[in-house]
């Protein structure tokens, strides 16, 4: 448990606010941060916070959830293509599973991900919801 708290703490920049990296050689935006550009394979360590805008690339609905997430079932996990290019997997929120469509515009929000019992730490992190207002192109 202690180990998990420390792990979450180190990831808080990317979990709370989509802090990734930008490659100074080719301009590629990287998420999650990996310090090497997957496009040009040069070192890339400059922090870059992604806009959080994107669209649903694919999705699936879970009716039985893993331990710690039972309260949220049923919920939808989606592969999201961010406006800057990177793809990531995230839980969708504020949407009924039958309302999710491929190509649906979504935006990042920071929500409760899980709690470690009644007295443990609360983990916050990114989820995505249907875009509140139409994205400017």
């Amino acid at each position, binding site marked *: 448990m202690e180990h998990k708290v420390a792990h979450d703490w180190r990831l808080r920049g990317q979990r709370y*606010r989509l802090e990734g990296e930008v490659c100074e050689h080719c301009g590629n935006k990287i998420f999650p941060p990996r310090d090497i550009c997957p496009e040009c394979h040069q070192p890339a360590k400059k922090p870059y916070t992604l806009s959080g805008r994107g669209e649903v690339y694919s999705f699936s609905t879970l009716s039985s959830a893993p331990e710690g997430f039972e309260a949220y079932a049923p919920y939808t996990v989606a592969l999201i293509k961010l406006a800057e290019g990177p793809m990531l997997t995230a839980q969708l929120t504020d949407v009924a599973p039958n309302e999710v469509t491929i190509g649906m515009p979504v935006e990042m929000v920071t929500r*409760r991900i899980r709690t470690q019992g009644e007295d443990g730490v609360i983990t916050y992190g990114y989820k995505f919801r249907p875009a509140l207002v139409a994205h400017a192109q």
Partner: protein
Amino acid sequence: MNNGHIMHSQRPVGIVGYGSYIPMYRITNAEIARVWGHESGPIKEKAVAGLDEDTITIAIEAARNALVRAAIAPEELRAVWVGSESPPYAVKPSATIVAEALGATPYLLAGDMQFACKAGTEALQAALGLVGSGMGDYALAIGADTAQGRPGDELEFTAASGGTALIVGPAEAALAVCRGSLSYVTDTPDFWRRAHEQYPRHGGRFTGEPGYFHHIQAAAEVILEEMGLQAADFAYAVFHQPNVKFPMRAGGRLGFTKQQLAPGMVSNTIGNTYAGAAITGFAATLDVANPGDRILLASFGSGAGSDAFVWEVTEAIKERQSRAPKVADYIRRRAEIDYALYARYRGKLAM
């Protein structure tokens, strides 16, 4: 220079960015009344936080909207203060999590304020002081709550979730300049929640006249008198809104018309968001304000006290209104739930 009871900062300050957040779920008063066998409730419906929402997540989204409107970098904030009566942790500041999510850490003050429904304006007064003294250029004051009423209690009709964030900065960059503020506080036992209790209690005899009306009227009357202003000098006025009746009556007694109160009356459709209530009404008013408009804001917090502010809207307002979602956008985003789902979302089922 000090005259009377009004507080003036050393340098002129104002609001450079504002933003709100209201969860999408709604339960109607008709539904709550049905469950408890009442005829009806005091408002139409209230906003309910989803399972993955709390005061911190509400504060984060409101603050992101405020930052977009202010167009400043989060590292420029020298304080993040979260006013709430429903912090997710009893010990561990909400403000550090909010500041981290915004990217404002580590060189800033971060703390939580507690004063029932005026915790948000308590944070705002402190932010005016910090920026007004020149200790920093920007400070973020937030009022947010996921308020709970005991099932069957009259508070259950109105206790709601939502919040607003206000970024204070130098007057030159402000969309609304603060012309003066005042605080009026007494020890009044009108509402409380003891440690480790889930739901608050209210002392019937002290709610209403000795609580809400006395403190709001005292604060508003003195700030108007000492500034030589009358209700007619204002485009709008916003008061703490535990329901619709109280702010309408307080406004009427102070000489304000229904039209002056209308844009800031959001309690009928979102409920009483406690520390977020008065300032969410203020945000809804800023959403429609024009340059030159004067706005009176007076909060109320049980315990008890009122913070009153006189604002003057600047030319900067028009462009910043559309940079982020408005209060009306969040009110429109609405999914109605029944009492059973509401009980699950708000943890009212003891298992």
